[in-house]
């Protein structure tokens, strides 16, 4: 098969700024580069513009050969929409009641709050695409997990499930959302058994899934997150500085991230009473929706005197310029042994010193442990965070060029293209074969 046809089901795709779009873009591009015809089935970008904003420049990073088919969200994002003209009297007077009714209605076709509403329009679009040009392989990216249900719409076509998170349990708290023998667990087990391949972002999540669904273990792969070189990516000249510029780039999950201890730790290290001075520049979204909570805005406002500031979102295409303006990076992550963080690999690829402000039991620690310029906070107290910041600032006063060079070289191993190449090569063997021709359960697909 010269040019197999991939149908890629990705709820979010550029110009959306949802955190998943970087992996989805890279996967679509990697298939196109491998000679596949790629059709991406995604939500209409107008929806993202209404609820979270767009990054129009991000479209430039999508291979022009990738064909994008936008479809309605089916009302899945209605609770996030802010057009008050469309609000009913019930929604204005009793928003909780309105939301609960919508939640229940959305679960009629698929057991996922609100996103279940995407199944019908996306399934219909998938069948139309297949009728227009037969699909050889389906790849479904989650979350939302309704993508896995959409993948079932094409009878006989093999599919791959890409878990960026975990459906059955919370990757931050570790708490189980449903048991394997529950109705949703049995649904998930069926999807896994029929899948041609199953991807996870780290070994911790894959391992937990292998315990829950042992019959599918042979098909499970770890396809770690990597970095996608953006314009301007390259090594930079190391410079000594007495006033370092620290930076944070990403979506601030302020509910789960240790932001408050960080702000206190920064104050201890570089506040008015401290001897050292530094700048801290935060860029990205202050929440997944882009709406900035009043408390977080106020926190940055009051920290301005200490050199900390928030400079707003930045296009993914411009991140190399931002990294190039910094001396070191601040890695704030949610706690949890299943958490890697999409930005960890990107941080490593910069070759800059990284101050880790997260639970060291996170999966991210596996990537960082051998990084030559890693400055982890020993604990999430203001003192622990302050010590890590100061240690990094001290290293920046007289940087060891060889150490910086080693850090740069270490980071380049996380290039996403290199991570994806072997698994895509494996999928060429699967594409075009019916599900019946592929063994189930054991995962021996060759």
């Amino acid at each position, binding site marked *: 098969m010269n040019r197999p046809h991939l149908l890629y089901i990705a709820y979010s795709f550029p110009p959306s700024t949802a955190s998943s779009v970087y992996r989805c873009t890279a996967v679509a591009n990697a298939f196109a580069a491998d000679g596949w015809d790629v059709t991406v089935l995604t939500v209409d970008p107008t929806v993202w*513009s209404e*609820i979270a*904003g767009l990054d129009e420049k991000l479209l430039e990073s999508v291979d022009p050969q990738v064909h994008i088919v936008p479809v309605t969200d089916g009302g899945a994002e209605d609770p996030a929409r802010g057009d*008050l003209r469309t609000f009913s009297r019930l929604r204005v007077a009793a928003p*909780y009641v309105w939301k609960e009714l919508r939640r229940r209605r959305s679960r009629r076709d698929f057991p996922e709050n609100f996103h279940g509403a995407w199944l019908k329009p996306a399934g219909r679009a998938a069948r139309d695409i297949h009728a227009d040009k037969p699909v050889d392989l389906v790849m479904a990216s989650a979350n939302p997990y309704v993508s896995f249900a959409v993948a079932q719409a094409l009878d006989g076509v093999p599919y791959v499930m890409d878990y960026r998170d975990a459906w059955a349990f919370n990757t931050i708290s570790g708490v189980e959302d449903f048991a394997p023998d529950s109705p949703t667990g049995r649904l998930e087990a069926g999807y896994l058994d029929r899948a041609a391949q199953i991807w996870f972002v780290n070994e911790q999540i894959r391992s937990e899934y292998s315990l829950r669904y042992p019959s599918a273990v042979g098909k499970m792969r770890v396809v770690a997150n990597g970095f996608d070189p953006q314009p301007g990516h390259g090594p930079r000249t190391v410079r000594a500085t007495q006033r370092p510029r620290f930076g944070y780039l990403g979506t601030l999950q302020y509910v789960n991230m240790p932001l408050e201890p960080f702000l206190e730790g920064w104050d201890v290290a570089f506040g008015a009473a401290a001897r050292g001075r530094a700048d801290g520049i935060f860029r990205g979204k202050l929440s997944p929706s882009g709406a900035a909570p*009043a408390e977080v805005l106020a926190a940055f*406002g009051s920290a301005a005197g200490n050199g900390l500031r928030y400079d707003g979102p930045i296009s993914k295409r411009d991140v190399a310029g931002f990294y190039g303006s910094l001396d070191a990076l601040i890695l704030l992550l949610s706690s949890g042994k299943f958490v890697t963080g999409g930005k960890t690999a990107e941080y490593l690829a910069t070759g800059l010193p990284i101050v880790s402000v997260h639970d060291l039991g996170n999966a991210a620690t596996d990537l960082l442990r051998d990084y030559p310029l890693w400055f982890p906070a020993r604990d999430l107290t203001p003192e622990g965070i302050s010590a890590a910041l100061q240690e990094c600032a001290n290293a920046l006063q007289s940087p060891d060029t060889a150490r910086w060079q080693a850090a740069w070289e270490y980071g380049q191993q996380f290039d996403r293209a290199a991570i994806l190449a072997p698994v895509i090569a494996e999928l060429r063997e699967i594409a075009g074969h019916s599900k019946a021709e592929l063994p189930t359960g054991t995962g021996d697909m060759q």
Partner: protein
Amino acid sequence: MSAPHQLRVGILVGQVSHPQAVIDDLWHRATGAAPAGWQVQVEVVHVGTRPDSAQPAGGVQGIVQLQPPTPFRGSARLSALAGGQGPAGVVGRLVRDNLESRRVAVTLARRKDLVASLRGSAVVVAADPSADRAVWQLRKLTGAHLVHGPAAMVHAIKVLSDS
């Protein structure tokens, strides 16, 4: 040379913990979303007590402060109920939020001049849920974009600039 576009944005702020931070954020986003050459005029109405002494951002024309009616006597008990679990907590939050949004809406409606001014805006933004009802009630009085929150506001400005 054509005259620069004028974009009037009305912001209604209800009961939020840090009104100045919220206003500044909306102002920055509104001015950032407008195309180059557009003049953005922002009018802010805040229904509530201003707890801080912060000054409005450079482009904000001024903040009109309105004092809402005094909460009714049982409001403390209602707040306690709203913080509870289960159906009683849901009912408590429903009643509390309704009363709150009605207070904001009634306070604004009493100021006909401010209502007229907001009606003249191209975009009217409810900065928080307690302001939603007051902005929603403008729907038959104006053709302006009536939105909740910064993302919807930026989207509305984008729609205007694309049209």
